[in-house]
């Protein structure tokens, strides 16, 4: 790599990282689902084991997940406080995407400016701007790109070993690794249709990857697979909210989140590669795009996640587009335009991508400090083991900050009657009838009820009508209200 390129790449990486870290620290707290992972990391830090038997979630349940991400972050938590780790390390991981996108783009185009532009796009892709998200995807995405890069360099022994290591780690990080396998399958099919030979090493690696992945998933998710069968894919999400996890694929939303320029450029490159140039290297990337899109279309992969991956691949494909564009301009009557092409492209990208990225970061759904304070108050002022009802996303705040059993949270796997439970939770926040609410609270042994400003906004309510004395005593009221349940329902005498 040339010195100048190295400097520019480092600059892009640092710019991306600094922007992300600034946003991560300016925006308070973490996204709701992050608190589940925080708790897991904390538990591994304390005991060395993941929390597969959770006494607090759903008032006691078994859970299963792949623990590599949590173990890795737990290792970092010995060096610095956990909340600092959770803000810094995931953002470092995501920022590494810039370097990986550069490397893959360079491999495909062998052109530094094009690859640097791709790196810049990846660094500011709006859909990747979840700066306060402490989730597995922050490790999964860069690791997947690393695995792809190693796969593209397979004839070299060093990369073979690196690919194997990265794939094993991926299989222990997220079940979404199946995306790579499906991508491989489509890649094989495309190569066969275009009568292009796949190297023996690639075939062997793909087969090995398939069997290794399946075996590891069977080991970890044996019980989930037996109980839930193929519906394991949809993670036992209640049917009432499954649309929010697997919404219908919206082209407009996709264009906005990955930004219009990379989207259109990506379409162009896909068309060129499939029907004109037929570059086998691009086949692999295009196969991954097809895999991601298909899985999202058939509601087999969460839309947001598939869009993140899609965005990263589009960033890489942009290099090919830019390279082709530069070559084309050179051959036109205005070859002098080529000198300004980089500046023009960068300007367009900065104007279209950066504001969207910052806007996406600002729109992250995080609890306020005030809400967190309420949950922390619960820990100090309620008996241990007292069950607390809150909205679905806030369930993790109950277990993480309040250290109390929650009514429900978004880890639905292996939970029985999840549909009914979700209905009950909604009823608690929407019913006007005290008897109905007390019935649900009593059945589920709930002793405290939390009403945050976020809950009010979500349900479009200012207050809950039935929360009156003597059955509901308000014990906390600083924006967020906490109620203690004082009544039981009794059977009336039959006449």
């Amino acid at each position, binding site marked *: 790599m040339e010195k100048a390129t190295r400097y520019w790449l480092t600059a892009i990486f640092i710019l991306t990282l600094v922007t992300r870290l600034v946003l991560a620290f300016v925006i308070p707290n973490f996204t709701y689902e992050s608190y589940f992972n925080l708790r897991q990391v904390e538990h591994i830090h304390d005991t060395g084991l993941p929390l597969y038997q959770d006494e607090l979630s759903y008032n006691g349940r078994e859970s299963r997940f792949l623990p590599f991400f949590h173990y890795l972050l737990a290792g970092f938590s010995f060096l610095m406080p956990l909340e600092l780790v959770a803000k810094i390390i995931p953002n470092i991981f995501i920022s590494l995407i810039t370097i990986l996108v550069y490397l893959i783009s360079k491999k495909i185009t062998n052109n530094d400016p094009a690859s640097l532009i791709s790196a810049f796009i990846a660094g500011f892709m709006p859909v990747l701007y979840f700066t306060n998200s402490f989730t597995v995807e922050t490790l999964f995405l860069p690791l997947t790109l690393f695995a792809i890069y190693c796969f593209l360099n397979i004839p070299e022994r060093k990369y*073979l070993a690196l690919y194997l290591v990265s794939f094993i780690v991926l299989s222990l990080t997220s079940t979404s690794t199946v995306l790579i396998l499906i991508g491989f399958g489509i890649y094989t099919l495309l190569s066969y249709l275009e009568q292009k030979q796949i190297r023996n090493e690639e075939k*062997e*690696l793909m087969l090995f990857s*398939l*069997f290794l992945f399946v075996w590891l998933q*069977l080991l970890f998710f044996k019980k989930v*697979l*037996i109980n839930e069968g193929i519906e394991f894919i949809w993670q036992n999400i209640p049917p009432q909210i499954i649309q929010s996890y697997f919404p219908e694929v919206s082209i407009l939303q996709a264009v906005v989140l990955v930004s219009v320029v990379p989207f259109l450029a990506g379409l162009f490159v896909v068309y060129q590669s499939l029907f004109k140039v037929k570059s086998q290297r691009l086949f692999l990337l295009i196969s991954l795009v097809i895999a991601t899109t298909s899985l999202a279309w058939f509601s087999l992969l969460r839309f947001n996640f598939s869009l993140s991956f899609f965005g990263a691949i589009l960033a890489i494909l942009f290099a090919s587009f830019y390279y082709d564009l530069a070559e084309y301009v050179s051959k036109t009557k205005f070859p002098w335009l080529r000198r300004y092409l980089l500046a023009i492209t960068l300007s367009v990208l900065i104007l279209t991508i950066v504001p969207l990225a910052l806007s996406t970061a600002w729109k992250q759904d995080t609890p306020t400090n005030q809400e967190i304070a309420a949950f922390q108050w619960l820990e100090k002022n309620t008996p241990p083991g007292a069950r607390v009802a809150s909205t679905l996303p806030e369930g993790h705040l109950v277990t993480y900050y309040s250290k109390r059993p929650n009514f429900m949270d978004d880890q639905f796997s292996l939970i029985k009657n999840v549909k009914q439970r979700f209905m009950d939770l909604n009823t608690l926040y929407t019913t006007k009838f005290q008897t109905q609410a007390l019935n649900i609270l009593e059945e589920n042994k709930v002793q405290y009820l939390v009403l945050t400003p976020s809950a009010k906004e979500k349900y479009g309510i200012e207050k809950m009508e039935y929360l009156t004395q003597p059955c509901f005593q308000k014990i906390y009221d600083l924006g967020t209200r906490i109620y203690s349940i004082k009544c039981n329902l009794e059977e009336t005498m039959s006449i």
Partner: protein
Amino acid sequence: MNTTPENNNKNNKTFQKMDLLSKYYDHLLTHKNWCFSLILLIVLGMPLLSNYWQNSPLIMGPESYYHLYHAQEISWDNFYYWPLNLLQKALPESTLILIPLILAVASVLIMLQLAKRIDLPEKLTFFFMALLISSPIFIFTSITLSAHSLFFFLVLSGFLLLTSRLKVFRYLSIILFALATFIDTFSSIFMLVLQATYFYYSHKEKVLTTICLMVTFSLTLFNYLVLQLPLQLGPFYPQRLLPELVSDLGGVGGIPLFTLLLAVIGVFMMWKEKKYHWTYLLLLVGIGAYIQNTHFIFLLALVIIFFATMGIIYLFKNQWSIETLQQFTALILILGLLFSTLTYLGRITNTGPSADEAKVLTWLKENVPEDQTIFSLPESSYYIEYFSNKRPLFEYQDSEREKDKVNLTQTLLTSTYASITFPLLEKNNLSMIYIAPKIKQTYPNDKGLLFLLKNERFKLVYSSEEAEVWVFK
């Protein structure tokens, strides 16, 4: 499918290059009979021992009790149950478990003999047998009174006789094939395809070919039209296409996921070889029958396992560019298949009936009038029939025909309102309710029928652990 000894040697040499596993493979190949016997002993013995220690009935599965019940009384329209009827009268009930075990062991021995006779390559036989014996569906079929285990035995015996040098034996095979047509229509069609393929490739005597095929075809038609044998027996379990196919997804039988993956590889690789195109026809027939009724899984599994065997042979016939990767892939395959089988063995003993269920249902036989209809889960219908000698609301395999009774069952189990449940119970004259342990596992006790049992109109008359009998007054 015939290979020369030279080819066999060449292929075996290729396998020997895999240093890590090759010496074990050679050893297993040499002692394959012992190897298969040991595997059989373990996979068949474990569930039975487990049931024995728990004092549960050794005979498991609703299909077993379906056959036992229907064999109790012989008439012209179920005369094919006569051998089972004889055995039921001659032997104690617990010893009837020997029937499927003997059929399984005999089938394995016949398969090995047949493979030798038709000169199947050793490694094809070895891998096919290993995959078959360790597959959950074979294990389940071999420890329950399954019509398919008898069918498998009869067809294998028929082909063994058909490949005999003696003309008498070859003609005797027609009898065995004829007996095999008394299972169900789809199985007979499956057998017809096998026979037609065999005769096409082996160019046997025209007379024998004609008689054999005509007898099979005619009996199939006769059994379907006159005796009214079903298109397919069962189903005896809720029909879930994927879980019943892949045992790792919680099905009662099925094949391991790894076997399915290997079969997919085999399907793609074998397409180039014309001599195997007949197996694709068999696969299509199998898939069609399976979609119609998941009870066909055993026969479909045989075809899938064949493709999986070819998949293994394709994967390991040549040395890979990355040798270590080949060894690790082989290791993962072995571990994966082992894992699936062991996981299955760990849960198969919950198939039922448990000792408590048998006890409660036997109580029903002795304490409830004969004409009483018993309400329970449809899956328990066969246990109710056999142990209590009473009529269930409907037999599970009649679910398609008795849709109104299926809906009635669902309503009764889930309705929490006495105003809905009580009139339905009265109208359908359902005063005896058998609460199987599965009902308590599936339905919440604060809703539906389990909640309504607290009403004074219900009275618990007998129970044993989780199994209960309630009377509705």
